[in-house]
């Protein structure tokens, strides 16, 4: 890796100021939390920062808190390992705990932060190869006619890239919001599913984060009584692997019947996809095997797989059905 300038930020305001300052001619100024995504992109020659703003030195940005009214608050520097082992998360947001538990490796989970995880760029083998960032190379076209086995089966006409974050699948299902601090002391909050935008090769970020902004927190509403949830990440290899697809299901129950449902599909569309038709099919009914099967069929209806990722369709359908049943039985 080439070197860069390094500044240890001591506050959110200072970090914002540093990120907003004009970059020198040598490359961009970027923020670093756990560094897992950034270091990979630098090593692959995709990102060449002139300056790195270290966020890990900011105190007080690493807490998980829960209260019955406000719900869950996870600061940006909280690691995936902390999320996985937090009693509040396990007890009240089990799909989120499960998604964190299956992300990457134990070593990476100890370093990777939720902020960095949500902001990471796709794990596409075209995007992470600097050759496809050269002038004159049409990476999206290469992907479309090339090896897109692990890419989108929905909304893939312009570009088949998918977001990589698996905790995002669970967080979207729980209705999470992200909180951002920006220049001039500005703060804003955005639903996570709006914050993530379709990835593109020509972008340098795949969220609506603006230059100079820092993601400070993720909040998740308090779940209603009797909420049931399940999460499943379907992989080729169990030890650790990027998913074929992942599915998060959060059900609000009214007795035996489903009152509200949130079914989110990951790694099959550019951003985590709400299976709305599936959700509608469940309302007011008990979640039987037959209903789960019907809802799963809705989830894959309208898929437009590419030549090499058709296999994702039946797998997604099976995983949706099974995750629904797991949530119902939870």
């Amino acid at each position: 890796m080439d070197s860069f300038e390094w500044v240890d930020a001591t506050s959110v305001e200072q970090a914002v100021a540093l990120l907003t300052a004009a970059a020198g001619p040598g490359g961009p100024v970027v923020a670093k939390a756990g560094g897992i995504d950034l270091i990979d992109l630098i090593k692959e020659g995709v990102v060449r920062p002139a300056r790195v703003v270290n966020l890990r030195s900011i105190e007080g940005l690493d807490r998980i808190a829960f209260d019955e009214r406000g719900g869950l608050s996870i600061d940006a520097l909280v690691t995936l390992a902390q999320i996985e082992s937090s009693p509040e998360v396990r007890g009240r947001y089990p799909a989120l705990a499960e998604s964190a538990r299956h992300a990457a490796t134990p070593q990476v989970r100890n370093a990777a932060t939720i902020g960095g995880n949500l902001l990471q760029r796709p794990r596409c083998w075209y995007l992470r190869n600097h050759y496809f960032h050269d002038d004159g190379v049409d990476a999206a076209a290469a992907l479309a006619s090339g090896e897109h086995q692990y890419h989108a089966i929905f909304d893939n006409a312009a570009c088949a890239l998918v977001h990589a974050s698996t905790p995002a699948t669970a967080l979207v299902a729980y209705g999470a919001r992200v909180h951002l601090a920006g220049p001039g002391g500005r703060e804003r909050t955005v639903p996570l599913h709006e914050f993530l935008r379709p990835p593109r090769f020509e972008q340098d970020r795949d969220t609506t984060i603006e230059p100079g902004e820092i993601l400070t927190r993720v909040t998740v509403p308090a779940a209603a009584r009797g909420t049931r949830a399940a999460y499943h990440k379907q992989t080729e290899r169990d030890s650790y692997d990027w998913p074929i697809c992942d599915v998060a299901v959060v059900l609000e129950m009214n007795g035996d019947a489903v009152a509200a449902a949130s079914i989110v599909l990951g790694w099959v569309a550019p951003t985590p996809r709400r299976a709305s038709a599936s959700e509608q099919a469940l309302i007011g009914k008990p979640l039987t095997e037959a209903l789960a099967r019907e809802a799963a069929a809705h989830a894959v209806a309208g898929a437009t797989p590419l030549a090499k990722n058709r296999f994702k369709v039946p797998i997604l359908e099976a995983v949706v059905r099974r995750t629904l049943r797991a949530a119902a039985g939870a």
Partner: protein
Amino acid sequence: MDQQGNSTILGPGAGIVTLLVNGRAVRAMADPGTTLAEVLRYGLGLTGTKIGCDRGACSACTVWLDGEVAASCMTLALDARGRQITTIEGLADGAALHAVQRAFVEHDAMQCGFCTPGMVMSCAALVERNPACTLDDVKAAVSGHLCRCGTYPNVFKATLAAAAQRRTSAADAESRR
């Protein structure tokens, strides 16, 4: 931080970094782009930690940061400041091997040996944290490790044996009180 309250800019050139390695404060040259694995191996001559992929995907570079497993190839040296770094060289107590090291020897949990230091670090962390660990716990603890020679079955046996031994010596110590 400078007098105006601005943080100092480090790099891009190298500077002296003080790190706590195996219980001692040591100084090495590193620039912001230097990884912990690089400074350990090339700055401090601690070549026990290996680099198998340099992307955090094989875990050969595993060290402990404050007792927790970390991929040293994906940790920048500057991010290791102020943390207790334990490498494979620091696991034994002088000539007395760690229980996991002894068990690895006895159960032939190595072949070529390149992935071994990292494996030992993860297994030792597990046994210290949870001496009641099961086979599934062991598999989870080494789920990030890649071994092409196929030592996994013996790694599992060795780690469970070391854990059992830990439980026995803990029970012995308990009963002597």
